[in-house]
Each structure stands twice: as C-alpha cells, then as structure tokens.
C-alpha cells in the first residue's frame, strides 16, 4: 500500500471515528428475524403489522427489498408472525439481536459502514441483516455476540 493511500485511509478512519464517537450505540436482544418473500400479499400484511405494532408500542423494525422483506420482532411474537406469513416465510432466525447506531452527522462521510462491519468480519461474527434509515443503522447478529461486539466497537472508538 502506498504512503498516500495509507494516509488517506488513516484520515478517513479518524473522521469516521469522530462521527461514531458522538453516536448512540445500543443493543436489543431476545429478537427473532423473519425473511419473507415479497409479494402483494406479504407487503399488505407487513404494512398492517407495522400499524399494529406501532399502536401497541412494540419493537418492530424491518426492510423491504426487491425480492424479500426482513422483519425483526420480539421473540414472543414468533408464533404470531409464523401464522401470519406462513408459506411466504423463507427463513427464521431466532436468538438474534439488533445493534442500533444512532448517528446524526453521517452525511457525506464515507467509510462508516465499512468501519462497523469490518469489526464484525475480523471477529468472524456473522451478520443476518443490515439496513440504514436516514440517521440510524441497524445490524442484526447472533444475540450471544451482541454485547461482545458493542464492547469491541466502543473500545476501538476510544483507542
């Protein structure tokens, strides 16, 4: 790697660290992740579910992609969602955690996602889902690795 590239990388990392230092980082465990086939039926169900969960202030996060919908709910709703989406479910991942980074100054800073996901990769922690929504970043990983990851991330930011 050339000196110029190393310097550029170092400066980028410093910028990323300063943004992440001012961010809120948290983890929620006891969650279950559903991957569901996207079609008109499942889209309508998912939209209803969002309304239902918001009304009852329950944890629900999710993303709708080109072919699939990912939904993360508290594990107490495992059977409920299983019955709701039935044959449209592609996979279910129990015992997952959401790592949530609330970053408000990330605009035009490149390398943030690389920084937070490279820590996972180095620790060989598998990620089941990832999505951003404006200022916040949601990572879905095994719940037994969640606190270890948050701890590692915070240590790296302090270093």
């Amino acid at each position: 790697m050339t000196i110029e590239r190393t310097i550029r990388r170092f400066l980028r990392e410093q910028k990323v660290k300063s943004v992440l230092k001012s961010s809120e980082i948290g983890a929620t465990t006891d969650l279950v992740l559903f991957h569901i086939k996207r079609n008109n039926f499942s889209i309508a169900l998912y939209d209803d579910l969002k309304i239902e969960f918001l009304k009852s202030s329950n944890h629900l996060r999710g993303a709708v992609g080109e072919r699939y919908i990912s939904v993360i709910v508290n594990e107490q709703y495992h059977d409920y969602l299983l019955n709701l989406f039935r044959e449209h479910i592609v996979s279910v991942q129990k015992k997952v955690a959401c790592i949530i980074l609330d970053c408000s100054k990330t605009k035009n800073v490149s390398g943030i996602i690389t920084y937070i996901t490279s820590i996972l990769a180095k620790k060989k922690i598998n990620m089941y889902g990832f999505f951003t929504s404006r200022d916040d970043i949601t990572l879905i990983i095994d719940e037994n690795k969640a606190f270890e990851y948050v701890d590692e991330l915070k240590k790296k930011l302090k270093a």
Partner: protein
Amino acid sequence: MSSPIFEKSEYLKNIKIIKILKESAFSAHTDIVCISISKNLNSVERFKCFVKELEDSNDAIVSSMGKTTITILLHERFLEKAKNFFSKEILDINVKVGAIFMKCPKEVNLTPGVTALISSLFADKNVTLYELISTYTDYVIVINEKDTYKMASYIKSILEVNYDN
C-alpha cells in the same frame, strides 16, 4: 494477476467472499429518489395507502424502518405523489440518487465480511453510501446518481480479476 484493490481490501483475500460476489447478480438504476419520513402512526398508515395507490406496488418501493424514521426508495416519477401524500412527515428528500442492486447466493448469510468488503469498495473511491439495505440474500446500495454506473462497473472489474494466484 495483481490488482491495486487487492492491497486495499484485506477481505478480498477471502476467496469465499469473492466466490459469493462473483456468483451474484448486479444491476444499477438511476432516476431514483430517497425520501425519509418520520416514523409514527400517521405516516405508517399513509405509507400503506401510498403503496396501494401505486400501479404496481410490487416493483415500486424499497424501504427500511429504523428507530425514528422510515426511508423510502422509489422511482422519481412518484416523487410528486409522495410529496403530496406525506407532506409534513417528510424529513429529507434526496433526488438524483442511484441504486446498485445485488442478488447473492444463499451462502452470503453464512459468510462474515461480505458487507464490509462491499462497503469498502465504495469507501476506497470516496463514495458515500446514502443507504444500505440488506434483505435475506439481496442488497440495495444507494449512492449519488453520478457515481452509480461508475461504481457498478468498478465492482464488476474488481470481480473479473483472478484472485486464485
């Protein structure tokens, strides 16, 4: 064959990730807008109506729901409709954005480092990711419109290099 990126991204050494990316289907689209709205009961109910009103809702929208916001990615022909629908709930509108869509094989879910590698390719080129949404084996990467095809072609060129040697 050597490549400059080989030095930049240590994860490229991971042949498993390269194999996954080589087996993935890439497509790039421009003329997209990215709208962020507040997450509340009113906006979620409106969102449901909005999806229903679009001619083919199944192709139109990619979205993600975070802690306090909902991000919607849609073709720019729906922008005016979205503005009218969500009005005061809108926090941010990013016009002139592009998206790179990736459809990966199932092994992507069992292989750590894929997202880190993908995002590092953008960081290496100083391209900011506006949004990144992964659902099961698919990724949607939202970036500046002007960088979209350039980045899609860059990724393809990186993957054409033979890393076996």
